[in-house]
C-alpha cells in the first residue's frame, strides 16, 4: 500500500475532531428525538381509505376534548406533499379505551380507516429503558477494555475505546441532526456498532502484535502500525463491504421498524472502519512514542525475529 495512513495522522485527528465537534454541537442544540419507548406515550398508526392532510387530522384531534394538544401528527408512506393515506400520531399515554375512541373518531370523521399499529408505553417503562441502556453500554465498555487489556495491552484497549466513543458520537450526531427517532432497538444497534468497531480494531492490532515479534526492534511504531494496516486493510474493506451489503439490504428493502435500526449500523460501521484504520492506530502510535523509548509490547521477545517461518512456529 503506497498511501501512508499513520504519516497523515494529524489530518485524521483534525477530521475526526471536526466531525465529533459538529456532532456534539448538533446534540447540544437539537437534542434527541426519543421515541415512546423512552418517554412513554401512545403511537397510533393508521391507514385511511382516502388521503388526508395533517390539518384535517389535527382538527378532529382538537375536537376530541381529550387533552391531546401535544399530539404530533406525521404523514408516512407515499405522500404527495401535504396529504397521505398513512398517518402516524404520537400522543400522551392513553389507555386502550381512549386509543380506541381516538381512532374511531378519526375513522368516522375522515372517511374510514384501518389501524395498522398502536403502541402505548407507560412512563415508568420508558425511564427503565433509558437507565438500562446506559448501564448496558458501561458494562460492555468495561468488559471489552478488560478483554483487550488481557489479550493485548491496556494502551490498545484505551485507544480502541476512544475510537469507539468517536463512532458513537458520530451516530448520535446524525440522529440528532436529522431528528431521527431513537427507539428501544437503538441500543441493540449501538452495541452491535461497538462490537464491530472493536472487531476491526482487534484485527489490526492483532497484526501489530504479530509484527512486534517479526519486525526489527529498531523499526519505529510508525512503521509497525503502517505495515499492520497495509496487511489488514483489504480485509477491513472487504468485511466492511459485506456487512454494509447486509445492513443496506435491511435498510432499503426491510421493514419500516428496522429502518432506523439499520441506519445506526450503516453510519456506525462506516465510522467504525474509518476510525479503527485511521484513528485508533494513530492514537496508539502517539501514545507509545510519548511513553516508551524502546519499541515493543510488554511481552516482546528478547530476540527480534525476522524470519516468517520462525515467527509462525513461535505462534504455534
Amino acid at each position, binding site marked *: 500500500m503506497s498511501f501512508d495512513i499513520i504519516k497523515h495522522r494529524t489530518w485524521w485527528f483534525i477530521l475526526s475532531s471536526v466531525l465529533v465537534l459538529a456532532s456534539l454541537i448538533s446534540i447540544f442544540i437539537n437534542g434527541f428525538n426519543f421515541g415512546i419507548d423512552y418517554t412513554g406515550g401512545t403511537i397510533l398508526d393508521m391507514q385511511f381509505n382516502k388521503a388526508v392532510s395533517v390539518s384535517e387530522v389535527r382538527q378532529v384531534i382538537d375536537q376530541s376534548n381529550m387533552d391531546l394538544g401535544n399530539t404530533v401528527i406525521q404523514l408516512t408512506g407515499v405522500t404527495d406533499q401535504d396529504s397521505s393515506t398513512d398517518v402516524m400520531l404520537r400522543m400522551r399515554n392513553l*389507555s386502550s379505551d381512549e386509543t380506541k375512541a381516538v381512532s374511531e373518531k378519526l375513522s368516522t370523521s375522515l372517511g374510514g380507516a384501518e389501524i395498522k399499529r398502536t403502541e402505548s408505553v407507560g412512563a415508568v417503562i420508558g425511564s427503565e429503558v433509558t437507565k438500562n441502556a446506559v448501564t448496558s453500554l458501561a458494562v460492555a465498555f468495561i468488559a471489552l477494555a478488560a478483554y483487550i487489556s488481557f489479550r493485548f495491552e491496556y494502551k490498545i484497549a484505551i485507544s480502541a475505546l476512544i475510537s469507539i466513543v468517536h463512532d458513537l458520537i458520530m451516530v448520535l450526531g446524525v440522529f440528532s441532526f436529522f431528528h431521527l427517532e431513537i427507539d428501544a432497538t437503538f441500543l441493540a444497534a449501538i452495541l452491535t456498532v461497538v462490537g464491530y468497531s472493536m472487531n476491526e480494531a482487534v484485527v489490526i492490532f492483532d497484526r501489530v502484535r504479530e509484527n512486534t515479534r517479526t519486525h526489527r526492534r529498531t523499526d519505529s511504531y510508525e512503521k509497525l502500525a503502517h505495515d499492520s494496516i497495509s496487511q489488514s486493510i483489504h480485509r477491513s474493506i472487504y468485511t466492511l463491504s*459485506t456487512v454494509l451489503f447486509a445492513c443496506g439490504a435491511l435498510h432499503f428493502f426491510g*421493514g419500516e421498524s428496522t429502518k432506523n435500526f439499520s441506519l445506526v449500523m450503516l453510519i456506525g460501521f462506516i465510522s467504525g472502519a474509518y476510525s479503527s484504520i485511521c484513528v485508533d492506530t494513530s492514537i496508539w502510535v502517539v501514545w507509545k512514542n510519548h511513553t516508551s523509548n524502546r519499541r515493543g509490547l510488554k511481552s516482546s521477545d528478547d530476540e527480534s525475529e525476522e524470519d516468517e517461518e520462525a515467527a509462525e512456529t513461535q505462534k504455534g
Partner: protein
Amino acid sequence: MRTRNMIKFFGAVIIIVAAFVTLINPLANSIKQGLDLQGGTHIVLEAEDTPDAPVTEDSLSRAVTIVERRINEMGLTEPLVQKEGARRIIVELPGEKNPEKAIETIGKTAVMEFKDESGTTRMTGSDLKTAKEQIDQGHKNVVGIEFTDEGAKKFADLTASNVGHKIGIYLDGELLTNPVVNEPITGGKAVITGSQTLEDAKNLAILLRSGALPVKLKVMEVRTIGPSLGLDSKLKSEKAFAIGILLIMVFLIVIYRMSGIVANIALLVYVLILLGILKYLDATLTLPGIAGVILSMGFAVDANILIFERFKEEVLVGKTLRTSMEAGFRRAFNTILDANVSVMIAAIVLIVMGSGTVKGFAVNLALGLVVSMFTAIVVSRSLLTWFINTGLITNPWFYGLNRKPPEHMLKKGGQK
C-alpha cells in the same frame, strides 16, 4: 486421489445447494413468528403493592394463573402469558386486533362483594361456585350465578333478613346491581342484571368464575400490530434477506473467485444451521431477530475473508496452494477468535441486560458468531482442501490473487 476429491467436493456442493433450495422455505416458515410479523397484541402488566395486598412471588404466580384462565375462557388463539421479573406479567395475544375488551377483562382485580343497606359486606366472590352469561325472558343480558353450599346458606340468610330492602352487588367497589329482595332465596342461585351486551355479560361471568386477582395489576404497555403491517414486514424482511445474501455472494465471487464460491457454499450451510438451531430452540422470530440473522451473514463471511487474505499472503511468499491454504487457516484462527469475542461481548451484554425483542436480536447475533466460526473454518476448509486436491485449477488468480506470485513459484502452485 483426484477422483476421490472430485467426488467429495462436487458431492458436497450438490448436497448443500439442494438442501438449501429445498429446506430454506419450509424451515424459515416453521419457526414461530413474533407478533410484529403475524399481527397481534402485546401487553405488559405490572403488579402494584396495596396496603392489603403486597406483591409477593406467590401472589404474582397466582395472578398469572388467573390471567391465564381468563384469557383461555375468552377463547383467544395461542395466547402466551408469562412472568417477567419480580412484578410483571407479559401477555401476548396473536391475531388480536381490538384488545380493549380483553385488556379490561384481564386486568380487573374482580373482587366481588354483596352488601346490605348498611354497607356491611356479607358475602364475597369466594362464595361463588360458578357464573354463566344468559339471556333472560325479558331479553336482557344477565349473568346467572350459582353459590357454593356454604354460599347458598349465607345468601339465604342475607335475603331472609333483608326482605323489602335493597342489597348491593359490587365488583371492585363499583355497583353492578342493587335489586330489592322480595322473598328469601334458598336455592343457591341468583342472576346479576345490568350488562349492556351479551359480551359484557360473558366477560363479567369470566371474571366471576376465574376469581379475584390477589394483587392489583396495572397496564404498563400495550402494542398492537395489525395483520397487514405484520405481513408487510414479513415480505420486506424476506426481500432484504434475499438481496443481502445475493450481494454478499456476488461480492465474494468477484473478489475471491473459486475461494469465494467455497465461502458462499459455507454461507448456505451457515444459514441452514442457524435457522435449524432457532427451530430446535423453539425460538420466536421477530423483526429485530430477522435483522440479526441478516446482519450476521455479513459478519459470518468475515472469518473467510481473514483466512483468504492470509492465504493470498502465503501464496505471494511462494508457497504451494495447499500449504498456503493450510497456513492461511491456521494463522487466521487467533485473529478470528479475538475478533469474534469482541462482538460476542457486546451480544452477551444485550442478552443479559436487554429486554424482549432486543434479546432476540442479540441471541441470533451470538448464535451466528458461533455457527459462523464452524462453517467458515470447518466447512470451507474441507471444501477448499478437496477442491485444491482435485488439481482442476492451479492458477492462483482463481483463489483471489491479483498480483502474480514469483515466477518460479507459479509452476509449483497447486501441485500436490
